[in-house]
């Protein structure tokens, strides 16, 4: 039953996309959103059914469950390669879909948020010339995303990886007449392409080392012909995973692909510019679904990452650093959507940090944060969308304010979103961020968890203004507690310690900039930009109802999933998470009261600071920003650490310059050489021209001389007679 479900889920959006594409311009025009919403709802229902059937399966079998259905063989080259132990291995790519816990969770999340965004989009995009085009692209996107999470082959993962990139290119550049939009679209696609470059390299290396690109085992009447990369045989330990340098190389290249897609440190520059696209797009693609593809891929490849610890550390470092960097940049942004964009980058950094810990608890926490983050970030983006809708497409926070009375529903739902993002107690963000902090903490201080009771004294209040060394005292107290011999007493713990500290500081930053944006938008004197014209009022119900639903989920989802670790229990049943190696790592589920308290305190501090600075008249803000010490930092953060300029200067300009040189070289050297060869005969010809003197005796003399030379040669060479 579950296999034809898995086919239906991507089929509906594809059908919708094709229908709209064909009928859109002429027939559907205004009401093409019905097709999309219907399709998304249908696929959401199917994914729910799949979710419950998978959950049922998991309860029964207890360990891991996956079912694979093959549609058709994409390409088959038999005995394409002779692998290590002499077998000739075929290059066999089947279009196969798999349904297991991880896929079903992702599918539910994607389809649910897509449906809400589609509804919101119908209202938001009302009256736009390319209305049908928008819904065609969104349906195409959801089709690619659903296929991406459910496909069971690295190559096809790469295929839909780029298909999703294509849809984001089309959607970012939706208003193509705006040069910035099309430039942003191009930038997004190219940066993703750089990521895909790494991903492609990883795929080739996997093909060489594992002889196959399938996740699952290729089973023919019971006998495993080709063991998949995450097939039962390999997970069960029958076949070893590649270790050492090659494993690290593969994982780092996979990480490069993930960075490209999930906008992590080196390749995050495209996400803030992607805000040029329509806001529902930002909500769906650049907050909830596409950017999470990287996290999904890293989770799927946990066995590979497990095989090389130093790759995991790199993932954690990249995640931590990106979170910190994005947090710092978001502090001073004055464009609401850009603030949210940087917050997304930061939260994704959190997820990668969690995955980087390498423990089962970390991975589950990462995925849990992904799950909850999708809801409240979508909520925040849609909220900003409705603000933009009301403010006549103005999103610059300096040009409007005090909208709490004007847009009550947006105000309330936006507040819920901010609270969830900041990680305040009952809201979803609290549970998932707490889980991440806990996993990082356990990874940083392996033995600390067992002495739960002693940590109570360190919840003393401390002022956020003090810089990081304050945290040092806090951690020293923890260090003093003796560490039981942790099983991974390796050298990375001090890195994780620093990562844990930066995570806490980032949590503080998150709370601060979220509520800074919140207060700037909704509090203070009511200012309405003149572009908004007549309709500066609450957005129609079709737009704020999805906001309400999302708000409810943002409020409840954390608590419900955390109840008796339902989420963790289901997720660990994914094959690639349920292999031997993972059992001895930190198990999920331990609720750390001390971490929870400290993170809540940090969050409250952040909010208080934001309130202090931004509520009422913001004299203090100007004062601080003028300070000698703060001004350069502020400029640095405002200009996104000049990363864009650095990239342009370091990569784009040199390549273009190289192109110019090559072109010059091509024109003068290579072409010049060819023309030179062309000129040689001409030169020779003109040389002989001057032999024609016009004098009869000269000609006869030359004749005689030539004859003599021949005679002489005859005489000398052949001896004459």
């Amino acid at each position, binding site marked *: 039953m579950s296999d034809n479900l898995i086919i239906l889920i991507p089929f509906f959006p594809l059908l919708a996309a094709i229908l709209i594409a064909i009928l859109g311009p002429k027939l559907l025009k205004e009401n093409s959103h019905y097709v999309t919403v219907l399709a998304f709802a249908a696929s959401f229902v199917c994914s729910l059914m799949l979710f419950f059937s998978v959950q049922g399966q998991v309860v029964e079998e207890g360990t891991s469950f996956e079912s694979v259905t093959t549609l058709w063989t994409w390409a088959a080259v038999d005995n394409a390669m002779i692998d290590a132990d002499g077998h000739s291995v075929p290059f066999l790519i089947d279009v196969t879909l798999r349904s297991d816990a991880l896929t079903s969770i992702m599918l539910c999340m994607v389809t649910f948020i897509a449906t809400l965004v589609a509804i919101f989009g119908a209202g938001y995009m009302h009256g736009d010339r390319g209305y049908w085009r928008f819904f065609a692209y969104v349906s195409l996107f959801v089709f690619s995303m659903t296929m991406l999470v459910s496909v069971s082959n690295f190559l096809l993962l790469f295929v839909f990886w780029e298909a999703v990139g294509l849809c984001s290119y089309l959607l970012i550049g939706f208003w*193509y007449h705006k040069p910035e939009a099309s430039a942003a679209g191009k930038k997004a696609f190219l940066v993703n392409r750089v990521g895909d470059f790494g991903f492609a390299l990883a795929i080739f290396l996997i093909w060489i080392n594992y002889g196959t690109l399938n996740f699952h085992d290729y089973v023919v009447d019971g006998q495993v012909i080709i063991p998949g990369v995450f097939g039962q045989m390999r997970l069960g330990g029958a076949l070893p995973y590649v270790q050492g340098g090659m494993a690290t190389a593969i994982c780092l290249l996979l990480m490069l692909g993930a960075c490209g897609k999930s906008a992590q440190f080196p390749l995050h520059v495209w996400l803030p510019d992607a805000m040029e696209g329509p806001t529902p797009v930002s909500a769906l693609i650049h907050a909830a679904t596409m950017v999470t593809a990287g996290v999904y891929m890293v989770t799927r490849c946990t066995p590979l990452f497990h095989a090389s610890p130093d790759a995991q550390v790199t993932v954690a470092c990249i995640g931590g650093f990106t979170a910190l960097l994005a947090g710092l940049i978001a502090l001073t942004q004055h464009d609401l959507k850009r603030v949210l964009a940087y917050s997304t980058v930061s939260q994704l950094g959190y997820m990668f940090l969690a995955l980087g810990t390498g423990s089962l608890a970390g991975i589950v926490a990462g995925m849990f944060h992904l799950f909850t983050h999708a809801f409240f970030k979508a909520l925040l983006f849609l909220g900003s969308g409705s603000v933009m809708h009301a403010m006549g497409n103005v999103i610059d926070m300096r040009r409007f304010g005090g909208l709490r009375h004007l847009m009550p529903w947006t105000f309330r739902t936006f507040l819920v979103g901010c609270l969830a993002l900041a990680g305040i107690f009952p809201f979803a963000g609290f549970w998932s961020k707490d889980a991440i902090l806990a996993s990082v903490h356990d990874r940083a201080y392996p033995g600390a968890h067992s002495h739960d009771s002693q940590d109570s004294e360190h919840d003393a209040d401390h002022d956020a203004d003090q810089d990081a060394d304050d945290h040092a005292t806090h951690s020293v107290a923890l260090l003093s507690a003796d560490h039981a011999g942790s099983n991974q007493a390796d050298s990375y713990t001090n890195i994780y310690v620093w990562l844990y500290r930066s995570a806490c500081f980032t949590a503080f930053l998150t709370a601060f900039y979220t509520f800074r944006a919140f207060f700037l938008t909704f509090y203070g004197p009511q200012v309405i930009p003149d572009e908004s014209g007549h309709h500066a009022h609450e957005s129609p119900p079709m737009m704020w109802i999805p906001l309400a639903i999302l708000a409810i989920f943002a409020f409840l989802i954390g608590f419900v999933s955390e109840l008796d670790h339902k989420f963790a229990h289901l997720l660990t049943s994914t094959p690639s998470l349920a292999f031997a190696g993972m059992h001895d790592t930190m198990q999920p589920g331990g609720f750390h009261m001390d971490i929870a308290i400290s993170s809540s305190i940090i969050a409250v501090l952040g909010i208080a600071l934001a309130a202090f600075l931004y509520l009422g008249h913001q004299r203090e803000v100007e004062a601080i920003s003028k300070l000698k010490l703060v001004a350069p930092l502020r400029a640095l953060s405002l200009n996104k650490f000049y990363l864009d300029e650095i990239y342009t200067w370091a990569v784009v300009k040199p390549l273009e310059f190289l192109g110019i040189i090559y072109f010059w070289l091509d024109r003068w050297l290579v072409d010049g050489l060819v023309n030179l060869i062309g000129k040689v005969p001409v030169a020779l010809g003109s040389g002989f021209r001057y032999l024609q003197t016009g004098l009869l005796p000269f000609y006869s003399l030359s004749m005689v001389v030539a004859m003599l030379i021949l005679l002489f040669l005859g005489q000398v060479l052949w001896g004459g007679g």
Partner: protein
Amino acid sequence: MDVSSLLLLSIALPLLGAIFIGLVAPGDRGSIRTVAFVISLMTFGCVVAVVSQFPTGSEMFATKSITWLPASTGIECQISVGLDGLSLWLYGLSGLLMLTAILVSWTAISERPALFYSMLLLLESGCLGVFAAQDLMLFYVFFEFTLIPLFFLIGIWGSEDRRYAAIKFFLFTLAGSLLTFVGLITLVVSVYNMSDSADRILTFSIPKLTDALALRPLDAKLQIWLFAALFAGFAIKVPLFPLHTWLPLAHVQAPTAGSVILAGVLLKIGTYGFLRFSIPMLPAATEFWTPWLLWLSVIGIIYGALVALVQSDIKKLIAYSSVSHLGFCMLGLFALNRLGVQGATLQMINHGISTGGLFALVGMLYERYHTRQISSYSGLAKKLPVLTFFMLIFTFSSIGLPGMNGFAGEIMILTGMFQKAWHGAEAVGGLKIVSVLAVSGVVLGAWYMLWLVQRVFFGPLVEPHDTHDHGSHAVHDLSFREIAALVPLCIFVFWIGLYPKFFLDRMAPTLDKSIPSAVANSSDLNESVAFAASKDRSLD
């Protein structure tokens, strides 16, 4: 009418048509171009009939040979034609692209249409002939024959300095092909001398030569020289890095139909030559030359992409992009394993389709605005949405977006290359760099194509200045004819993208035969055969 005579008919038809149009058919442009179109349709019909009846297998199909030199002369040189896995799809591609070429030049050509269409049909018969020829001499005749019509096409109907381009194109290719001719003749003669059997005859038939050389290869030193001679002619046709300067010039000056066929088919003759002659017949030389050629093709990829980045003329940009794409084909060819070679052959077809389409589109743009400068265009999507739609499809197909044809070829080539560089016996350091650089070509490819699309089609609408005054015929979107020219190509773009197995199965047996050395010399082939055999049962 059995298949082989159909094959022969498909080659002869355009020839006769050309003569008919060129000399006999009176009447204005309208009737001439319809006649030409009907002839090319009939040829395409024959081509499809032949291709559809191709049984998957490695031996020659639809072979027919008419004795040209009587046996008494002791030379076996016949007009023998036949198709096998390798030449099947290229043969089909030539038929297909001719339809596009004729449709595209419907309104573009005004002076001397009769001569134009006869030249085009001659070109088609040349292209079909080259791929169908199974006799060395016949192959060389067609190999040269394709040059002449294109020379006139570029020379007469080209744009501003067409003569220089035509002459350069002709001389450049001719010089190379003469060297190749020397190489081919020495090949034939050395095979004749080598065989000590009593009834040895000087045979030109390619299958016999290949089998003879497979049995007893020539000595290494001679092979290396022969390979060099063949390399000269074929490398110029495939524009391999140092010998590519004629291509951008020829493309920029050629009329649209000329560019479509030149990019679509003529460039493939070079790679086809390598795969038909150099690799199977000269294994030792291939081993010797492979590192050089791999480096040259990678340089071609990166160089082509980077130079394309700074072009100001659309056609030149696309021309340099085909230098880059064919660098990929050569890379695949000289990866010398099944994946690489099949990927390369598939990539030849993909490149033909996508670049053919791109040139057709640029032609249509040129027909409307009469300028190829990128700087004079912007935001055309608003005014020409259908053209932009097709442009996007072909751009994404050419940069190898998954789900379209470019991706299938590129992935197989790169996997093959990686396999050669990182895995197995000759995992040499240098080759590793080559394989990584090649993958970066994919990124550069996306960069310049998207830059082109964004610069020309998106952003605020700016039309070239001189189009406003002659408001006589306002610039309108693609007409039905133009769409009809592009749709068949789109069908193939998605067909190969979504289901390349259909094409690979028909190619695989022949290509495996042509690179036996690559797989054979790997360890204990027999053991793997057993393993594979058990699997064959499962696969089909």
